[in-house]
């Protein structure tokens, strides 16, 4: 098989890996919490959009409502699960393990029996050729949305006043609090933003393939590996990691045709990432 399709497919999946990694990073940088339920959260939001669509709302408004709902859901999870009797970031990450099993069970219970579902495509239906590979407009949208959203997040962190606050909190949570920064606001915003990013990734995966409760199962490890390549803090690291993993996946799926190789490679990259950043990982936040 020629190189073109491998590169094209790799870039498309890689973009989505990178975007999910960005969601993990947005939350981790600001709060020190690694959300093990990030992928499940996104899938649940796509099911919300699906339910809205089945209830008679046309796809585009349903997806827009989903975006709003995912922001609200992220904030809600923070208020209900994370904020009460707060612990250190490590203990809070443990709580997301509870969310991980709870959310996947909720989806399995409500939608598990008839899965997978076909999710309506909100993008134009046609396709075009790139390097000898047919690319649909959904796939193109996946790449463009990833670039736009990552750039938006980076700009938000770099130039806006809320970005400055987030950076202050992530560099020293306690001092920021003493200086009058409202840490809770930063936490809510981070949870909401990460939730939105996760939902967008799940939405695109659902439109490219189909929708099922375990839609994101194979992708969480890859996203975590991509995020880890930048020490869970660097958006550039996540982009590079996502791309490398996307290319690794498209290569192995052509030459080895065994999906577990993607996981093995992701684990190897995760090891490298953890090893490179082991000194500062988990020490970002002291309380």
């Amino acid at each position, binding site marked *: 098989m020629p190189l073109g399709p491998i590169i094209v497919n790799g870039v498309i999946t890689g973009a989505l890996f990178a975007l999910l990694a960005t969601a993990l990073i947005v939350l981790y940088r600001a709060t020190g919490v*690694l959300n*093990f339920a990030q992928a499940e959260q996104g899938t649940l939001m796509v099911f919300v959009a699906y339910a809205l669509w089945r209830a008679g709302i046309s796809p585009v408004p349903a997806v827009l409502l989903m975006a709003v709902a995912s922001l609200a859901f992220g904030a809600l999870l923070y208020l209900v*699960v994370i904020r*009460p*009797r707060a*612990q*250190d*970031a*490590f*203990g809070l*990450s*443990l*709580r997301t*393990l*509870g*969310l*991980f*099993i*709870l*959310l*996947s*069970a*909720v989806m*399995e*219970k409500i939608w*598990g029996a008839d899965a997978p579902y076909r999710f309506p495509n909100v993008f134009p239906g046609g396709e075009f050729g790139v390097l000898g590979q047919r690319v649909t407009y959904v796939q193109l949208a996946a790449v463009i949305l990833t670039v736009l959203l990552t750039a938006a997040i980076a700009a938000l962190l770099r130039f806006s006043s809320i970005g400055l606050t987030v950076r202050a909190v992530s560099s020293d949570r306690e001092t920021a609090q003493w200086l009058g920064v409202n840490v809770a606001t930063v936490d809510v915003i981070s949870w909401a933003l990460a939730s939105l990013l996760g939902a967008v990734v799940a939405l695109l995966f659902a439109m490219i393939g189909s929708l099922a409760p375990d839609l994101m*199962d*194979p992708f*969480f*490890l890859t996203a*975590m*590996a991509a995020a*880890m390549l930048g020490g869970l803090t660097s958006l550039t690291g996540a982009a590079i990691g996502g791309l490398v993993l996307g290319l690794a996946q498209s290569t192995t799926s052509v030459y080895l045709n*065994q*999906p*577990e190789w993607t*996981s*093995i490679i*992701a*684990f190897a990259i*995760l*090891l490298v990432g*953890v090893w490179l950043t*082991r000194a500062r*990982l*988990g*020490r970002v936040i002291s309380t």
Partner: protein
Amino acid sequence: VSSVRSRFARVAPAPPLALGGLGSLAAASALVAIAPLVFSGYQLYVLGISLGYATAALGVATALRALGALALTQAAMMAVGGYVLVELFASLGLPFPLALVAAPVACAFISGIFAALTTGMTDLAFAILGFAFTFVVTQVLSGHLLKGISGGELGRPVPPGSFFGYSTNGHLAVYYFVAAVALVFFALASMLLRSSLGRSVLQVGDDEVVATALGIPINRLKVASLALVGAYGGLGGALAALASGFVAPPTFGPDLIPTLMAIVLLGGTGYLLAGLVGAVVLQGVPGMINMSAVNRELLIGVVLLLVLVFARQGVLGEVDLALGRLRRRRP
């Protein structure tokens, strides 16, 4: 590394592994022994599986209490333990006792290497790698690469074995065998934690700086302890496989990670019998009342969140506190 005490704060400085004394262990053993008088064949079958989970959970609890380490690898260790048993015993025809011993030994080896590679890493890094490790092991087991060994999605049957003349054929026989092995290893853990070696390990978890000052070789001790923790995971997996009569990759999926955590935290980190209490409540009882897999996952998610937010002492912690209050009230 911050101390475990601040993370899972106890109200009163309880002695290490209270309610894990040989007395309470004997009481628990008596309950396990008379269970066949109360429960039917299917309920015993479920209880036997829970004892396997309890054994693996004991490892998780000890790692958390003694080292502050979140052994998310334990789910993978259970899988490896189960498959080592079935592969050596059923496929290669090795004697059953040898295969049963090989399961924890293999897991101790893997877990030890994992611990050695992650020496000096933060708790979070260790937890992430553990989670990813379990993820990748499950993916590989349910994929095509190892289909010959894993039996694919459907798994493989585990035939009854013979342990020095004792055959594990039939509900009651396999239950008593699994219960005996599990309880012996609970007693071993209790004795080990009371030994000078165990006390050194507990000191490492409480305060690494003090431990270093006392001349405890922290890194070597951590690797050795985590190897032992892995061994308990492998043994637990082998026992669960033996008790359930089959071993399949989905049983050991990523869902098992929060399940083991919920078992340990519900029981109460720091208590030897935490795994036993948690496994009976979250694995045994739901199985006995024929709760569906999805409902059990819901239960585990809710319990895990509730315990983490509201009752970090777990059930045994609350019992311990209540007993303490009673004792103080007496003149």
